[in-house]
């Protein structure tokens, strides 16, 4: 049985006994106990503290998702702040950053304040970079920062350029918050719905050129270098973009980046019906082809690019895993592939996909943990530490246990993922945010 709690609940006291405790901030990976007293990590347990058997389990800092869509306001049938926060807690997340492409968009201080909520996790808002996300006038960036905005984005599109993009970068350089950029050039993307390549040709779907991403990444790196602004490039899907970022970082450009679980583990062969991860041989299955659940922006990568991205994550070039959790009703997916609403839910499967890559020998567990917790947290100025004296903000999970992804197993308001019906490793047992138990199973 599972249950959810909230950050407004009383702080917890418990002892997790004998778990593998991975703390990227301290650079440690030890079998030890974690003692929590009144929500604080301490050395000595409270006399009546509950003991949780952590043997065979992993303790990691609470996860931080830099990119989710909560559909509130506008499409509460697909997701709400409340249901999204529960999905987050179920997935081990303690902070999620909501993109502003709601209806109406989060483009002013009042809406940022309304969406900055402590529920089953910390819900933080990314403000729209332009008024109404219309790409015409710079939004009230400083007002939104004062209201709690942790970054800015016109997600769904890149900020248009060149003059507008430059003024946004310049303003953000002063404010010290990052632009979280959806790197996609509209003309180069040309309405493509599947990565250009063999699957696109066989399925006769409109191809999406990787140049659409690379061109905007290249522009943004130059703007960041010229203005001193911080840019965070989100949901990368091309090896070429990762290479550009690695080069820019060598030059001292302030750039961070993330990749989604689906761009590092799923491939364009999934559109052709395969359900094999990028590190496995694809198995196209024509009757399963064209499933709208595989439609996402940017489109699922080629196998080569997915493996290169995974290598970039393993090498530390890619800072973070962000889910781009994009809930949609079943109806919006049960249409021809080209008409399906783009997006995949990810909060509850991100850890599992990461663990599948770890099991396949493609990723080390501490690297996965850092990419889910301390490194994304740093992008928005949060810290993660399991040291004594800190408020307990952590996840306890069983890395080997399997679960089946189905509608009843997820807390999100939507279940639009092509992982449906698959058995994945990684079951969250306990999530604590700011000393409170937010999820337990």
């Amino acid at each position: 049985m599972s249950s959810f709690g909230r950050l407004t609940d009383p702080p917890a006291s418990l002892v997790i006994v004998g778990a593998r405790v991975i703390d990227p901030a301290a650079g440690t990976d030890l079998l030890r106990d974690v003692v929590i007293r009144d929500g604080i990590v301490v050395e000595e347990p409270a006399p009546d503290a509950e003991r949780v058997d952590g043997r065979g389990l992993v303790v990691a800092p609470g996860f931080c998702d830099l990119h989710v869509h909560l559909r509130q306001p506008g499409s509460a049938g697909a997701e709400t702040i409340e249901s999204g926060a529960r999905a987050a807690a179920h997935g081990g997340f303690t902070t999620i950053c909501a993109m502003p492409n709601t209806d109406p968009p989060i483009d002013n201080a009042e809406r940022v304040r309304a969406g900055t909520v402590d529920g089953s996790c910390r819900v933080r808002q990314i403000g729209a970079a332009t008024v109404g996300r219309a790409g015409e006038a710079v939004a009230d960036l400083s007002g939104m920062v004062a209201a709690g905005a942790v970054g800015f984005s016109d997600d769904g599109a890149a900020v248009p350029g060149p003059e507008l993009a430059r003024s946004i970068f310049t303003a953000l350089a002063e404010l010290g918050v990052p632009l979280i950029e959806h790197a996609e050039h509209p003309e180069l993307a040309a309405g493509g719905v599947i990565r250009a390549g063999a699957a696109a040709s066989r399925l006769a779907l409109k191809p999406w050129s990787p140049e659409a991403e690379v061109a905007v990444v290249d522009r943004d790196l130059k703007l960041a270098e010229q203005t001193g602004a911080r840019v965070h490039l989100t949901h990368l899907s091309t090896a070429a973009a990762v290479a550009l970022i690695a080069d820019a970082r060598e030059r001292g450009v302030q750039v961070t980046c993330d990749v989604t679980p689906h761009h590092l583990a799923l491939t364009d062969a999934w559109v052709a019906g395969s359900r094999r991860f990028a590190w496995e041989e694809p198995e196209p299955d024509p009757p399963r082809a064209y499933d709208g659940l595989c439609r996402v922006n940017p489109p699922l990568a080629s196998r080569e690019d997915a493996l290169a991205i995974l290598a970039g994550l393993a090498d530390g070039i890619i800072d973070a895993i962000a889910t781009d959790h994009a809930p949609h009703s079943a109806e919006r997916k049960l249409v021809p592939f080209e008409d399906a609403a783009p997006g995949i839910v990810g909060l509850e499967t991100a850890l599992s996909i990461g663990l599948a890559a770890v099991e396949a020998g493609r990723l080390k567990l501490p690297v996965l943990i850092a990419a889910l917790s301390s490194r994304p947290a740093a992008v928005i100025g949060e810290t993660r530490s399991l040291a004594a004296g800190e408020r307990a903000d952590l996840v306890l999970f069983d890395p080997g246990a399997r679960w089946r992804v189905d509608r009843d197993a997820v807390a999100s308001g939507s279940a639009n993922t092509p992982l449906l019906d698959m058995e994945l490793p990684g079951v969250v047992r306990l999530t604590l945010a700011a000393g409170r138990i937010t999820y337990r199973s």
Partner: protein
Amino acid sequence: MTVEAVAPAWPYRHLIDVEGFTRAEIERVLDLAIAMREARSARRNRSLLEAETVGLAFYEASTRTRVSFELAAKALGATTVDLSVAGSSATKGESLVDTVRTLERTGVTMLVLRHSAAGAGQLAARTTGMHILNAGDGAHAHPTQALLDALTLREALGGLDGRLLAIVGDVAHSRVARSNIHCVTALGGRVRVGGPAAWVEGFESWPGVEVATTLEDAIAGADAVMTLRVQLERGAQLDEHAAEWRMDDERMAWAAPAAPILHPGPTNEGLEITAELANGTRSLIGRQVENGVPVRMAVLALLAGAA
């Protein structure tokens, strides 16, 4: 039909594409089509599908495919219902899935579907219990066209083993070309596609397919040539296309001696093919149309478990 009585059950519930069919499965369809052709002229098998209601849902214009499916269904005794999509609720914003489910509830048991979106057949197959027969989905597949082309080629050439079919024109936007590639290669033949670079882009990634960008290279030594309809709305440089890619009797000399010409129709005479070639002795275009009904009789009977 005692021959079919001993054949194993047809393994597929739907006909979405010929991709994945074995050679034996394709040959079974073609053999059955020949039997159906004879049965039709002898007016036999007229109650084989009397338990079936065949719906025809064409979201894109079609004459020959729709008519030949309807005649095939009627020749086997099925009830047919033509969902003329213009004027139906499908054009009033009802989704494809809703329309398909409604048809199922009204008693349609087999649905012939043509739709502009690639993958429409898979979507329908995943969401209903009817048998789905794909009559063309975007530029993806047109399996009955490929099967009737295979029958036409087999009868003209004696077989496809080691034979080279050249497909020329806007291959990238052609469902006929894609299904023919799957069908011909499964039957032991080879395919070469030819057209301006943008029209053959991506086909170098197809196993066993050669790509050519001049007409002479495309049809050199081909045992049969198939030219595709120029889709006028694609804004092709029509004069240029006509000059470089139009098939005529002289250019057919680049192909193997006596190689036949095919076209899925309807032809733009004077554009991708001359009237003389289309109506001449090397043309199999009429045979293609004639084979449409028996091939569709065969696939209807197989899917219904009646053959």
